[in-house]
């Protein structure tokens, strides 16, 4: 005989679902509108998405407020977990998405943007990422991950070129493998502890003093492999360059920022307690992964001939750099991770947006990819402002002060220093120097070389439109004057991270 289930609506705390529900509703609304009247202009969908994201943003700000008053909130059968990490993670996701979505308002017509499904999928994906970061339940993490990933595969494929399909298939297959890893790892943890909530897992493990350390390590290995895939840590990175190359520049930029921050938050939840339990193996393995990812990705980026592919490798390297925060594991490092990512998001989105405005539909003679370095040769002659802005983003990514990413790098290295990782700090610093080479390469092409292609054909800025320019302008301003935002951002982030216990 079943007892009646008595759950008060209050204890469900359904409001914790609001941030995810908003984009889901938005996606449904878009689909409904399309059902009612098809063939509407893409600008409608863009603005609708933007509106829903704004609402999402508002609700998150609200939660940030609540968090600062009440601390961590649980909800929906204690599946939802709204702590500082969740709030910052979601904020970064939503803000980056808001910067991304207007990029579809190009002056050239790309057919994926005319499908309302594109926007619906996009919003679903955001909801998926939001679920990922706002829970410590492995099931929900998995569901969120897959929701987002499946949507993302489709978005890539929608670009509708051979390379996009190839990219989508590669991403999809490897994603499936990573999903297998995740579920297997989760299974072992479940077997060991009988729970699928991260905080309970850690509590149980700590209670029996890691007696089954061998199995714990196996589980962690699988989870690490799975998130290594999402974070594109070497050797799980192989999809990254191909997928970036296959997808549109805008989406590639988006992919380099948003999925990774979601994965970082989960990685932080999953691995931090192990790092703090002095599991030497994990420290070693993370150390190796971080150094390998930073260095090898940089080295491969050196030899690329396509800017977008170069930026793909560069974003792998940046991910490796930031992964160091999880290794270091101090509050300072974890705050640095978010700060870095916010600053990186602006510069990187800016750089990819610049590629996006330079995307032409027909390649000129001698051009074998969308954005070869040669295309930008002598840009300073024809479009000095564009060249200057692109150069600025490159310098920022290289970590040249006082532009955006520098402050992130500085905080990150400082946290390595205060965390006692001296050698790591040096490796991080020297990697920035290697990285500077390939960023400089683009600057050299833009500022110091003669144009290679026949400039009669418009190949620069063909895709530029007011919204795109505004986004780029916004990113530019933020990148230049980032020093003014660092202090408040840091204060905000540190408070949230610290109060969540990380």
């Amino acid at each position, binding site marked *: 005989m079943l007892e009646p289930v008595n759950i008060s609506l209050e204890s469900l705390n359904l409001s914790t679902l609001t941030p995810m529900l908003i984009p889901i509703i938005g996606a449904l609304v878009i689909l409904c509108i399309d059902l009612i009247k098809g063939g509407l202009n893409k600008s409608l969908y863009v603005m609708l998405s933007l509106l829903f994201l704004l609402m999402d943003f508002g609700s998150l700000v609200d939660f940030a407020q609540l968090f600062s008053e009440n601390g961590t909130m649980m909800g929906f059968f204690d599946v939802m977990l709204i702590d500082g990490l969740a709030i910052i993670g979601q904020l970064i996701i939503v803000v980056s998405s808001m910067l991304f979505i207007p990029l579809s308002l190009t002056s050239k017509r790309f057919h994926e943007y005319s499908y309302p499904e594109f926007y619906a999928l996009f919003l679903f994906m955001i909801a998926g990422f939001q679920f990922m970061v706002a829970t410590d339940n492995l099931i929900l993490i998995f569901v969120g991950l897959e929701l987002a990933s499946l949507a993302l595969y489709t978005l890539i494929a929608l670009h509708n070129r051979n390379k996009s399909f190839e990219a989508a298939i*590669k991403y999809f297959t*490897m994603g499936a493998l990573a999903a297998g890893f995740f579920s297997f790892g989760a299974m072992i943890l479940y077997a060991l502890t009988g729970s699928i909530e991260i905080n309970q897992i850690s509590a149980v493990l700590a209670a029996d003093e890691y007696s089954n*350390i*061998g199995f714990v*390590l196996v589980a962690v*290995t699988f989870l690490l492999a799975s998130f290594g895939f999402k974070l594109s840590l070497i050797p*799980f990175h192989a999809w990254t360059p*191909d997928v970036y190359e296959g997808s549109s520049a805008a989406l590639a930029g988006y992919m380099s920022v948003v999925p990774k921050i979601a994965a970082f938050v989960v990685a932080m939840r999953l691995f931090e307690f192990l790092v703090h339990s002095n599991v030497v193996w994990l420290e070693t393995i993370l150390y190796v992964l971080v150094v390998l990812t930073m260095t090898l990705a940089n080295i491969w980026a050196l030899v690329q001939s396509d800017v977008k592919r170069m930026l793909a490798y560069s974003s792998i390297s940046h991910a490796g750099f930031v992964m160091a925060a999880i290794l270091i594991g101090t509050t300072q490092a974890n705050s640095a991770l978010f700060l870095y990512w916010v600053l990186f998001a602006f510069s990187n989105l800016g750089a990819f947006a610049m590629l996006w405005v330079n995307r032409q539909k027909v390649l000129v003679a001698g051009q074998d990819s969308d954005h070869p370095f040669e295309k930008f040769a002598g840009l300073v002659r024809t479009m000095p402002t564009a060249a200057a802005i692109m150069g600025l983003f490159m310098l920022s990514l290289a970590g040249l002060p006082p532009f955006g990413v520098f402050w992130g790098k500085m905080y990150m290295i400082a946290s390595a220093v205060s965390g006692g990782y001296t050698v790591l700090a040096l490796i991080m610093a020297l990697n920035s120097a290697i990285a500077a080479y390939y960023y400089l390469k683009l600057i050299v092409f833009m500022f110091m070389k003669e144009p290679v292609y026949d400039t009669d054909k418009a190949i620069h800025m063909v895709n530029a439109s007011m919204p795109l320019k505004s986004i780029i302008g916004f990113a530019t301003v933020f990148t230049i004057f980032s020093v003014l935002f660092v202090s408040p951002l840091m204060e905000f982030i540190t408070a949230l991270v610290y109060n969540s216990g990380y």
Partner: protein
Amino acid sequence: MEMYLYIALFAPLAGSLFAALFSASPKTLIAGIVPSALLFVSFLSSLVLLVYVMGGETVHVEMMTWMATGDLYIPYGFLVDQVSATMMMVVTIVSTIVHIYSIGYMDHDKSFNRFFAWLSAFVFSMMILVMSDNFAGLFIGWEGVGLCSWALIGFWYHKESATWAANEAFIMNRIADLGMLIGIFLIYWNTGSLQYDKVFAAMSHVDIAIVSTIGIFLFIGAMGKSAQFPLHTWLADAMEGPTPVSALIHAATMVTAGVYLVVRANPIYDLIPDVGYFIACLGAFVAMFAASMALVNRDMKRIIAYSTLSQLGYMFVAAGLGAYWVALFHLMAHAFFKALLFLGAGNVMHAMNDELDPFKMGGLRHTMKGTFIMMTLASVALAGIFPLAGFFSKDLILEVAFIENHYILYTVLLLTAGMTAFYSFRLVALIFHGEERYKLFGFHPHEAYKYMLIAMSPLALLAVIAGAFKMTYFEMVTKVLPMTEYHVHNPIVYWIMTIGTQLFVIACILYAYRKYEVAKEDKKMEENIGYKILWNQYYIPHFYEEYISKPYRELSRIFWKDIDMKVVDATVDMVANVFYKTGEKTRGMQDGNLSSMLQLMVVGLVAMLALAAVYSIATVLVAG
């Protein structure tokens, strides 16, 4: 008196700047006259100062600060005492005469104006050198004369040999200057000052070893300027400069700066007689060494240059033995007759279209009577024949060596005196006597301008009568220098020595006349190994070229091409290339094949699993 001091010091500078104004324009007579006149003014002021200091007073002024930092304080301070007044007199007299002479000598040169600018600048530097009241100020003058000497040796800069000689002189001097600089540093850190009075006062409290070091380093500085062995080669090469320059700089003034330094620093050298003895020995060696090279040389100016070198050796013997006033006296006398000799040589060169080989001359006494007389006078003075200036100053040095019981030095100097007489009159005989060989070479010699001869005449006069001032000079200068009289107490010995020396010298003169009255190429002598050594200047220039200059050039090239480019720079590039090449080599891992991508992931997973296994086994073992 301060006003006279400033006039004496800055009048040459004014003259130099005035001439420099015209340096880019073609010959302007006034650019020669004004500096000469200003120098004369400088001479008059020096004379006034000399008279003033003869009364036992000194003039000391501090114009302004030069450098001041930490404990270091260096002013532009000037001191006119008996020693510097003597030097000022020598400098201003000789330079005034040389200036006036040059107006004629440089008559046809298109860089007439530039010449006077540099010449006056030289005098200014020399005045700073002798008038400064501290070692740093001395160093200003020291380097200043070096610069002017560089510019004047290389005055005819289109000639490769001239510019080469100029650079050689400058660089050789720099080598010595380093020693000087080190000496100055030592002085500063041990006495806390560079002012002469303070330094000398403090010197007695300084450890004697350090004083010796100071003495040695200062002397190294002196060796460069005074072209002592082994830094002597530049002086002979410096004869590439215009002859008035040789007369002023490379005979009368600059090269004696080293002697002046030792004399000036006498309180230091008094404390270290061993170093002094070394200086004397080196001086005696150089005296003979240089004289021997002069014996066979066939370049008129070089012969005189070696003679200068030899006489500088005499001065150092005196200074080294503590007879500072003797050294200074010989310096003065030498300045007069040696400048005269050079100017005379200049006249000859003018007459012979810059020909320098005396074997191509001969019999010039008919056409160049005035020059002939003056050069003969100068040579007699140089040889040290009574009653000319050389007798009083040079024989005194022999006496000093004798009295101080350095008989070897004495013997060397005596022999050298004979050699001096020989080469001097070899030159006179070759130039002015015998057949008129120049006709074979198509020269048409003529006497120099009259006013050039007139300009030279005061020098001739001084060369004759300078010895007469010996006692006045002695009384004046010993107010600051150690007062040691050098008299051979046994009158018999004294007379034997004096007369013996005179006879020996005269014999040498006669031998030179006999041998070179009729100039003939002595093939047999030229085959002689000793002749060859002398002819090639003991192979020292050759040695320097082969074993110092060439290796230096070669080493520089190796440093650049092989070390800097192929090692240092290549290492840097290699580091960069290692990264780049690694990228090129390994980018193939990303072969675009989905299968290998998946395999890579699984391999990564397995590797981590293996590590986990190792780790957990290790943990179990440690726990067990």
